[in-house]
């Protein structure tokens, strides 16, 4: 089996959402001598990306996303033994994610948190209707290198701008990447307020986070 075929098998196993299938494919890839980092990045993570796309197309549902994430976790833990200790415990980044103050919308933000988490980021989901200062406090507490802010209403969108200003005032802006999202947000809005990126959906959020942090 070629490497490409092996990656496809790993990815398909994740999309099947079955832990047994993922574990069996990871064992097979290990026996074929494929480095753990490649198994994760080109096989398992590629599968999770596909799961995200299928969720957005209404072909897979949230329980499937979670089962796939659980299966990926099992696959990665199998590989940890083959990886240097610091690499095994290394996260892609630390992300604080929440919906800004005044806005009680929860679902979209939670799906983004789940997708980031299952893609290897350490995610601190601080909920919805979050006082703006709490974003700053959590960033400091967790030493986060990215903050995600969701707003589903035009009236709460300015909260994203205020957090960026607070980051600047406290000298944190250079060490924290800022991602914004939510139905009224756009790339133009992200540019205007000085955010580092805008993501339209959960799978795009993962892609943008990887671009900025890796």
């Amino acid at each position, binding site marked *: 089996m070629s490497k490409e075929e092996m990656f496809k098998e790993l990815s398909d196993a994740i999309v099947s959402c079955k832990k047994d299938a993922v574990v069996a494919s990871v064992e097979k890839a290990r026996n074929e001598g494929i480095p753990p980092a490649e198994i994760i990045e080109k096989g398992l993570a590629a599968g999770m990306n596909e799961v995200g796309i299928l*969720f957005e*197309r*209404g*072909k*897979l*549902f*949230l*329980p*499937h996303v*979670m*089962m796939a*994430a*659980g299966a990926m976790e099992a696959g990665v833990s199998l590989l940890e033994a083959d990886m240097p200790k610091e690499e095994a415990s290394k996260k892609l980044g630390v992300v604080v994610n929440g919906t800004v103050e005044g806005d*009680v919308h*929860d*679902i979209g933000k*939670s799906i983004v*948190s*789940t997708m980031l*988490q299952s893609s290897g980021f350490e995610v601190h*989901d601080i909920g919805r209707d979050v006082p703006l200062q709490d974003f700053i406090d959590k960033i400091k507490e967790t030493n986060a290198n990215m903050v995600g802010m969701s707003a589903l209403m*035009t*009236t709460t969108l300015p909260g994203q701008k205020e957090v960026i200003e607070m980051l600047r005032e406290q000298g944190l802006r250079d060490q924290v990447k800022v991602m914004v999202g939510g*139905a*009224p*947000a*756009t*790339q*133009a*809005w992200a540019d205007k307020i000085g955010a580092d990126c805008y993501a*339209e959906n959960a799978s795009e959020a993962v892609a943008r986070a990887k671009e900025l942090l890796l």
Partner: protein
Amino acid sequence: MTTEYALRMGDGKRIFLTKEQIIADLEDGSADAADLGEIQALSGDEIDKLAEILMTPSRMVGVEPGKEVPVTHDIGTIRIDGDQGNSGVGIPSSRLIGSMMHERAFGADTMELGHIDYSFKPVKPVIAQEMQTMEVCQQNMIVPLLYGAMPNMGLYYTPDGPFENPGDLMKSFKIKEAQESMEHAAEHLTRDMVWIMQRLMSSGADGVNFDTIGAAGDGDFFASLHAIESLRKQYPDIYIEAGMAGELLLGLHGEMEYDGTTLAGLWPHQQAPLAAKAGANIFGPVVNTNTSRTSPWNLGRAVTFIKAAVEASPIPCHVNMGMGVGGIPMFETPTIDAVSRASKAMVEIAGVDGI
């Protein structure tokens, strides 16, 4: 120099496009809907007609004579005195005055009474006030007056309600527990919606508008369909409008079924027959506006989805048109150029029965 037409982005920003760009975006938007919903894309003639509507030089447009449709309003009772935060215009007035203004001054064909929070659950503690207001409104009005509210199943989860938040449970990989929490919440939501409507029907309500069904995913739709079914059995003549929250029914539970159909992942043309089966008189399909795309892209996409829903629906379809839906930009007070063009397109191309 090529002629450019003044249009908008999905966030309301003014843009200028050539005829070729408009047609390309219409086709692209229609293809996106066709791909997602596995439905027919618009024909060349329909795309041309849409382009013609968008390129009309007038600031606002209207349907051709004889093609007029009924128009109704959600939350209209508080739109007059509400502020910009809820798309209102800040004129002090009661809900009765708001309703009567819509009936007698704005030409609404039906109206609804709603309260400021606009979800069903918070109606329970103020039910006596809602009953009294419904009775007074009914005594002063001629057009059918419904009671309108959102199922909003999220209010049944922590921190707002008694059941553990399935989002938190899912993140801890407690999938079964999350699904059970949604099932319990759906059961309570159905019970509350029926209880509230029993009381409003006793106060003279002509019916109910379930607004933004599915906002909390498939469980929200499940609960609403069961409430519709129950109300139809109890009140054979009740007028029931089932309006959706979004184009895709998010699969948060994933396994809930109605009449043998899995609810998760349904698009408007698949949602409509279920609303009819449950006993609704009117289905309100929704297509969300993408704020990063142009109005031709959004309108081509919205008309494609809605046309398929109208064709599949055994009951009339009153499409949701407003801020951020139906190809209209997401803007507190959507501009008349965008609203009138999108509305004309929905009537003349998608074939909707009302707005």
